[in-house]
């Protein structure tokens, strides 16, 4: 049994079947890729795992707990961090504050702690700042920590989203198109970075990506979606040569 398993998950929007009977098994500390043409249901799948949608049918299991129907904040606190395809930063907050907010789920100080300025609260604040700075150093944004998140370049914003997700101390990290909008050298850096955080933080990573180079290079297992159905699942070599995958990407032979 892996860290995350989906059993027969389906999602309907009105009459549209966005996901149809999807089963997945994500092993611990693996990099798992989900690919598929536009509109295949990849982001929907992420939204189901993180609790934004409750699936119409099927089960989502994370570390032996059923999480379908759990609100997003609870899912996050259980250790599932995520980034978004269309970047969602707190744009009018500083880069540092963005990561500090990311620490919310793993810290405790409440309303009255803050008003009274209890020693425990101040200690925790120091820890939050320290951890956030370390994370920013890791993604190479420490120098820009006081900039507004809005003012960062596109690639930097993606990195900041990853740093914010890591602040949650997740055991499962969902990356929604992390390489979108990056140039080739940035993509190479990103691939190394993803492998690095997996090794250093004992993470399991689930990623949606369009760039085949990135996917084939770093993923240990790949699932292919097409029109809401899973059409292949296996190691990169196997998936690459799967007839149905080639068909859905390149079209059927005439």
């Amino acid at each position: 049994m892996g860290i995350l398993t989906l059993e027969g998950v389906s999602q309907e929007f009105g009459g549209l079947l966005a996901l149809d009977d999807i089963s997945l098994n994500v092993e611990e500390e693996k990099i798992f890729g989900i690919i598929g043409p536009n509109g295949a249901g990849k982001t929907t799948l992420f939204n189901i795992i993180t609790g934004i949608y409750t699936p119409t049918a099927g089960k989502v299991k994370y570390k032996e707990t059923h999480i379908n129907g759990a609100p997003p904040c609870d899912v996050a606190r259980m250790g599932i961090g995520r980034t978004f395809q269309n970047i969602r930063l707190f744009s009018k907050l500083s880069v540092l504050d963005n990561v500090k907010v990311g620490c919310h789920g793993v810290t405790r100080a409440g309303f009255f702690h803050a008003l009274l300025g209890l020693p425990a609260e101040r200690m925790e604040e120091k820890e939050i700042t320290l951890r956030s700075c370390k994370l920013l150093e890791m993604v190479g944004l420490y120098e820009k920590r006081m900039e507004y998140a809005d003012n960062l370049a596109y690639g930097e914003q993606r990195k900041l989203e990853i740093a914010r997700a890591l602040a949650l101390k997740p055991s499962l990290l969902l990356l929604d198109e992390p390489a979108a909008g990056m140039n080739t050298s940035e993509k190479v850096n990103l691939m190394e970075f993803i492998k690095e955080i997996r090794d250093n933080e004992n993470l399991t990573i689930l990623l949606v990506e369009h760039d085949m180079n990135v996917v084939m290079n770093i993923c240990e297992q790949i699932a292919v979606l097409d029109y809401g159905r899973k059409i292949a699942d296996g190691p990169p070599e196997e998936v690459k040569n799967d007839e149905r995958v080639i068909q859905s990407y390149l079209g059927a032979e005439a």
Partner: protein
Amino acid sequence: MVMDAVLSQYIDAYYLHIMVLIGINIILALGLNITTGVTGQLSMGHAGFMSIGAYTAAIMSIHLGMPFWAALLGGATAAAGFGFLLGLPTLRLEGDYLAMVTIGFAEIIRVFFLNFEPGGKAVGLSGIPEHTTFSLVWLLAIIVIVLNVKLLNSRIGRSFYAIRENEIAAEAAGINTTRLKVLSFMVGSFLAGLGGGLYAHYMTYIAPQDFGFMKSIEFLNMVVLGGMGSIPGTILGTVVLTIAPEMLRIVAEYRLLFYGGMLVLLMIFRPNGLLGDVRWYDIKKRWFGKEVKTWES
């Protein structure tokens, strides 16, 4: 208190009066700043919560003979309680819809007090003991300012800002947005109730028309003028908008024209409010060449 006696010797009563009003308005505006400026939940019924605090405190003083501090606390708590009751079902609404519900709520409260026997109905409630003094108002205002600074620089304060900036991302960071929005609404109404209690015990007379829709808009203007979410901004906005009508007495009927004109100019020249995008960090860096240290390894 001694200080008040000394001050009234040296400062004109009229100026003291305005300064007391500034102090009370700062407490009220900082409350709205938390709900609307920081958390981004557009509330247009702040005067409604103010009136709950004012009436509750006044009735506790007059009819129940309670000490002043108990009446103040009672008024603030009652307002926060209504904030909770209103916030729980309505904070899943966003933007315009929430604004409409809060306007409606404030109107209901106003009509309620128009027909409320112990509150003197439309005539209003007079004979409230005059307990609010200059030094008390400013002591409380300073405490409120300090606590505001502490709150907004804490874990809870940061999550308020995060909710304003992007609710979905805030949830993904483990923030229970529903609970924190209700909390922010309660803090805002608590301060409105506190300000209301102080106001009642300063004017010694309150009536439902003191807490109408335009009063709510006035507080909203203070927050927007100063800069949404900024404590120094809100204080500046409050000072400007409390003094302005006094200075514009000559053109009394055209006051609102001035308001409108000022807001239009503000939108053009400072779209984020007077101090909305001014940070302590930038000032230090620019004027003292100092990098603020955030991490020493």
